[in-house]
């Protein structure tokens, strides 16, 4: 019987929400790792019972947890994230050089084919890889070695590598994004990287069209068409039709094009979702109305989706890793808020229900569609 498992990372632990394919009734387990920040947890596409979790704490640092039974039990694996060589400096908020320092793992991306291979995006920005199920980690240092590192700078949340997209058609191609450096691509499995930010324009850096320095909040792709990328930038929703070689804006009629999340419908490569947020200083929806906006045309033409979402006095945020889609025939969309709600739609966004309402602030949402 088909079911779904939603993995929710919060400021104070992880929660696992499960339902059958109808997605009407939900079981909630957790908090797992109570009291710890769970920036992200994600299951292996090759073995859904294998789940990795990033567990961190301002007091006790970084841990990586691994489950082999779908989140029922966990074991701590290696938590050594040592930069390759002398890491050097990046820009601090005031433009001065600042030493690279590991702080936490923001995003975990298991391989599409090997449950023991997994990538970790960290703050200060770097990409790590494990080939042994998290028992050891090695930096793919060609990314920092690209040469533009001294010009990278932290966004408000820190200088984090938060997005890792694995190309399902080309195992050597990976896309990543960093706040605030931009998007990068490797075509050789992580040895060498190139910035892919042509067409981005950011008024908050000295050269708005610079090669790096852009605060990319999130990238998304459809697995059937990995050369088409969608981006929620600090401001602007962007699209690339050539694997990031060039970008054009598709914000269209959005009421504000600031936001964090962006995702793609599981079966319709041109149906995309964002949650517009008022501004960079007012991290909440416009007019207290929480609305997902959907485009069925790959951008530019957007429609608001509000059925079942709070339409007054709602001032939550939806963080960059907090939206996911399932792959059931009627595509399910899920997102979590800083107010602790996780909303789900079993009809591609037409109607919404709160699965849970009172969790700690939600940092990430992933979903597994289980056979």
């Amino acid at each position, binding site marked *: 019987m088909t079911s779904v498992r939603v993995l929710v990372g919060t400021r104070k632990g992880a929660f696992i929400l499960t339902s059958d394919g109808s997605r009407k009734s939900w079981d909630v387990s957790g908090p797992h790792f109570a009291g710890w920040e769970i920036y992200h947890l994600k299951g292996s596409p090759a073995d859904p019972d294998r789940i990795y979790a990033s567990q961190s704490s301002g007091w*006790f640092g970084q*841990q990586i947890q691994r489950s082999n039974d779908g989140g029922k039990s966990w074991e701590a694996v290696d*938590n050594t994230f040592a930069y390759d060589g002398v890491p050097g400096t990046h820009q601090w908020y005031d433009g001065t050089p600042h030493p690279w320092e590991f702080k936490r793992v923001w995003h975990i991306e298991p391989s599409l084919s090997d449950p023991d291979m997994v990538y970790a995006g960290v703050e200060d920005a770097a990409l790590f890889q494990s080939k042994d199920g998290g028992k050891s980690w090695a930096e793919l240092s060609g990314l920092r070695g690209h040469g533009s590192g001294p010009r990278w700078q932290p966004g408000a949340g820190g200088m984090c590598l938060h997005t890792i997209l694995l190309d399902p058609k080309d195992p050597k191609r990976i896309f990543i994004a960093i706040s605030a450096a931009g998007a990068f691509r490797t075509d050789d499995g992580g040895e060498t990287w190139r910035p892919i930010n042509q067409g981005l324009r950011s008024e908050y850096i000295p050269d708005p069209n610079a090669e790096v320095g852009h605060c990319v909040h999130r990238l998304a792709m459809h697995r059937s068409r990995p050369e088409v990328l969608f981006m929620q930038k600090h401001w602007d929703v962007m699209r690339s039709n050539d694997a990031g070689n060039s970008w054009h804006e598709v914000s269209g009629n959005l009421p504000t094009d600031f936001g964090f999340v962006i995702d793609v419908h599981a079966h319709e490569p041109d149906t995309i979702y964002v949650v517009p947020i008022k501004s960079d200083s007012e991290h909440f929806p416009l007019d207290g109305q929480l609305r997902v906006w959907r485009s069925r045309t790959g951008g530019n033409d957007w429609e608001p989706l509000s059925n079942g979402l709070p339409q007054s006095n709602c001032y939550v945020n939806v963080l960059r890793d907090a939206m996911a889609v399932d792959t059931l025939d009627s595509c399910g969309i899920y997102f979590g808020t800083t107010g602790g709600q996780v909303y789900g739609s079993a009809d591609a966004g037409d109607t919404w229900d709160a699965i849970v309402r009172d969790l700690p602030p939600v940092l990430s949402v992933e979903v597994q569609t289980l056979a």
Partner: protein
Amino acid sequence: MIRVVLPSHLRKHAAINGEVTLEIDGRVTQRALLDALEQNYPVLRGTIRDQQTQRRRPFLRFFACQRDLSHEAPDAPLPDDVVRGLQPFLIVGAIAGG
């Protein structure tokens, strides 16, 4: 026998009930104590001191015998009452809210 009291998060993380007891050969210092603790409980590596720099994590404090030992040199001897097991070595999360 050295007695160590960990914060509740770390006790849970390492599946420890109550105090930890350690046997340390030779000079009993903060470094020797943490080495022994991490050897007995590898899952605690990186939680109390940074794995690269070996420096105490900034939001943790070390107390014993009503004294703050957080800023003592890692190789300084620990108080006699800790060495003799009369007093525990306390690893405490700083009051940092959240």
